Structures are given as C-alpha cells and as structure tokens.
C-alpha cells in the first residue's frame, strides 16, 4: 500500500530525490511545450508569407 506522506518524505531524502526527479520531468515537459509553441510561431510566419506571396503574385 502506497503511503503518500512516506512517499514524499523518502526517509528524509525527499528534498533531494524530488528535486532531481521533479526537475527532470519539468525540463522534459517544458521542452515539449516549447516545441509546440515554436511550431505555432513558425506556422504563423508561413501563413503570413503565403498571404503575401498570393497577393504579390509570382516574382
């Protein structure tokens, strides 16, 4: 049976263990969110370029 308080405390090493594991998971999640945000930005730029090219016609 998992005891939440004991799991957090980790025998007195909770701060060290959760800082290491928490930072790892936070960085990985942060990278995915950053990549999604970048993709939206790149797509916005491409759409803007497409609109301009359509308006201007072939050069």
């Amino acid at each position, binding site marked *: 049976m*998992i005891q939440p308080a004991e*799991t957090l405390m*980790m*025998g*007195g*090493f909770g701060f*060290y*263990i959760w*800082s*290491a*594991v928490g*930072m*790892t*998971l936070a*960085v*990985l999640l942060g*990278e*995915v969110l950053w*990549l*999604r945000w*970048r*993709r939206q930005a*790149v*797509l916005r*730029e*491409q*759409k803007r*370029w*497409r609109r301009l*090219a359509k308006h201007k016609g072939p050069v």
Partner: protein
Amino acid sequence: MDVHWFRYASPATFYGLAGKLAPWFGWGGVLLIAVGLYWGFFQTPDLLTDQKQYYRILFVHVGAAWMSMWLYVVMVGWGLVGLAFNTRLSFMLAAATAPTGALFTFLTLWSGAFWGKTSWGTWWDWDPRMTSELLLLFLYVGYLALQSAIEDVHRRDRASALLAAVGLVLVPVIFWSINCPDPNQCSALHQQSSMREIEPNIRIAWLVTALGFWLYAVAATLLRARNLILLREGRAQWVSNLQEVRA
C-alpha cells in the same frame, strides 16, 4: 520488396513521416518513463546495503547520462552523413538533436549534484566523470552557439558538424573515466558502473526509464526537425501546399 531507401532523405517526404511517428515515440516514452519510475519507487527496496532511499535519484540520473552521451554520438553521426553526402536533412537532424542532448546533459549534472550531496556530502567535485560531463555540456552549447552565429546555412551546418565531430573524442573519455580497467590508474570519487551487480528490480527500473528517455528524445528530435524543415524550406511550393499552412 522494392524499398526506396532515399525517399525519406527529402525534407518534403520526411516532414510527413516525422509528423506521423512523433506521437508514437512521444506517448511510448511517457508510458515507459511512468512505468520505470513507478517500478523504481514502489517495487524496489527502501534500503540498500550501504545506501538509503537517495539511490532513487539514479533512476533519472543514469538514463539522462546515457542519453547525454548517446545523443551526442547520434548528432555527430548525422553531421558526418551530411558532410559526406551533402544532404540537407542530415544536417537538420543533427541540429534538431543538439538541444535535447544539451538538456539531458544538464539534467545529468543537476541530478548528479543532488546525488553527490546525499552520497558524498558535496554538490560538486572536479572528479574526472563530472568534469568530462561538464565539458560535454560546453560542447553542446558551443555547437548551438555556432549554429546561431553563422548566417549562411551551408557554412553553419558544415562548421558545426566539424566541431561536433572533433568533440566526439570526449565521449570515450567520459565512459572510461569510471570504467577504467585498472582502478589504481584512475582514482575517482564517482563510483564504477554497478549495472551487473545491482538488484534485478532496480536494473529493470533503470533500463525501462532509460528506454523511455530514448523514445522521448526521438520524439523531441522529430518535432524539432519538423520546425527546422518549415523554417528552412519555407519558400518551397510544397510548404505552401501543406494543409496546416493553408488553413
């Protein structure tokens, strides 16, 4: 069966393939990381013979350290393929691998510091393993800085691939810094690899988490490669015809 090996060497065809593969690798990675951490935290003993619960830091530390080295090798591999065959996509994949490799190197040093504090009583020591891992982080940062510093894409790709290839000499140094055949010749604070002697449940948790990190790294690389392809090939007609650009 007739397999067109070079079909996906084109950014236009690889873009679609990467979009299909990334979610599979990503969710596979999430699943394996969750299973590995669950196994590591709840199916392993609270105490080892000479270590208390802080050994659980190793479930993320070891996987991150393997990824930091392996992703560097992969990055160099793509760079060399690009140099040899002058393929745009290879350079893009090398550039897409670097940030994830740098992040795993940072996480190795971060989690290692917490491990060091609990195990050795110090956050940092100029030990061969830690110092060589820090140099690896500098190499990744140097690669990324070079990517940003040169405007011309061809020169940028070739220069950074060359830098990465020269830095490859560091990877065996990191590996042998603790796996020295004669321990008397390489005294280090960092202990030697204990993968073979460790309790089976701990080994399972290590391996599953590391495999999860690997799948995650592939997914992140594919997503970043898609962004790079859009940025670099943005003026091509096939990009304008993409559903997501037309929408």
